[in-house]
């Protein structure tokens, strides 16, 4: 059986991303390892408290030799435009989660709204990655 373990988002600043995903979203740090022998590459992952087997990799945009500078700049710019990926979160109570996150300073792009499939809202992480927060209607398959 194949399962999802990690999925990655590009971030402009790992410390800033870590603070956002843990302090504002309430996620746990799953791994934070810096490898001196690999040019101080930092493997940084976070995940929701109730879901120990799935994590989001907060990946710094690398320079050479992984990416040439021009590519790194393009990836950085695309991430800043919100076009390198989306995190889809679900919750049992979108309105309550919205109030809680808003109280912690999360700025929402879409406030909770009724949709055919449930109640849906969205915000961004500090790098610009879109994050959706959805309360899926029980009868709807998404």
């Amino acid at each position, binding site marked *: 059986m194949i399962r999802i373990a990690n999925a990655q988002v590009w971030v402009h*600043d790992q410390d800033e991303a870590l603070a956002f995903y843990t302090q504002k979203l309430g996620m746990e740090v799953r791994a934070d390892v810096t490898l001196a022998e690999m040019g101080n590459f930092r493997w940084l992952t976070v995940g929701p408290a109730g879901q120990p087997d799935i994590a989001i990799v907060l990946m710094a945009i690398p320079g050479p030799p992984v990416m040439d500078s021009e590519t790194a700049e393009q990836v950085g710019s695309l991430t*800043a*435009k919100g076009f390198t990926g989306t995190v889809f979160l679900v919750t049992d109570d979108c309105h309550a989660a919205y109030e809680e996150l808003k109280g912690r300073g999360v700025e929402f*792009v879409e*406030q909770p709204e009724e949709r055919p499939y449930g109640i849906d809202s*969205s915000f961004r992480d500090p790098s610009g990655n879109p994050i*959706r927060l959805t309360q899926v209607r029980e009868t709807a398959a998404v």
Partner: protein
Amino acid sequence: MASVPPARHLLRAKDLADARYFEPLVVSDLAGAAGLSRAHFSRAFRSAFGESPHGYLLTRRLERAAALLRGTDRSVVDICSSVGLQSLGSFTTSFTRTYGMSPTAYRAAFPPAAQHALIPACVLRAHGRPQRRTFREDSDPAPG
């Protein structure tokens, strides 16, 4: 601290249009969200996203209006004002030129909302926003 790409600030302007299109927003409000002067902002936004901020805001409003026409039985006047547009005349003109038919005809051309497939709102919003067509009466008064 890694440097923040300039596009991140422009995305704040785009997000403002997406979040509060129903308010009487104008381009200088979007420029403020990006922290740029009005003239510089319009050029930078177009360079990053390939269209003017005025065009983005207008097509977001038209996309929202189209969604309301398809998905509700609210009146055209009501829908016009609830997507942040003041003038029913220019709304009808912009809508007709963009979608090729009047708001009323557009509504009649679609089946009731309940018959649509359940597709996440983000997908509908991103893919449903019409491409800008430029016409004098609704074009950006400033260059860029």
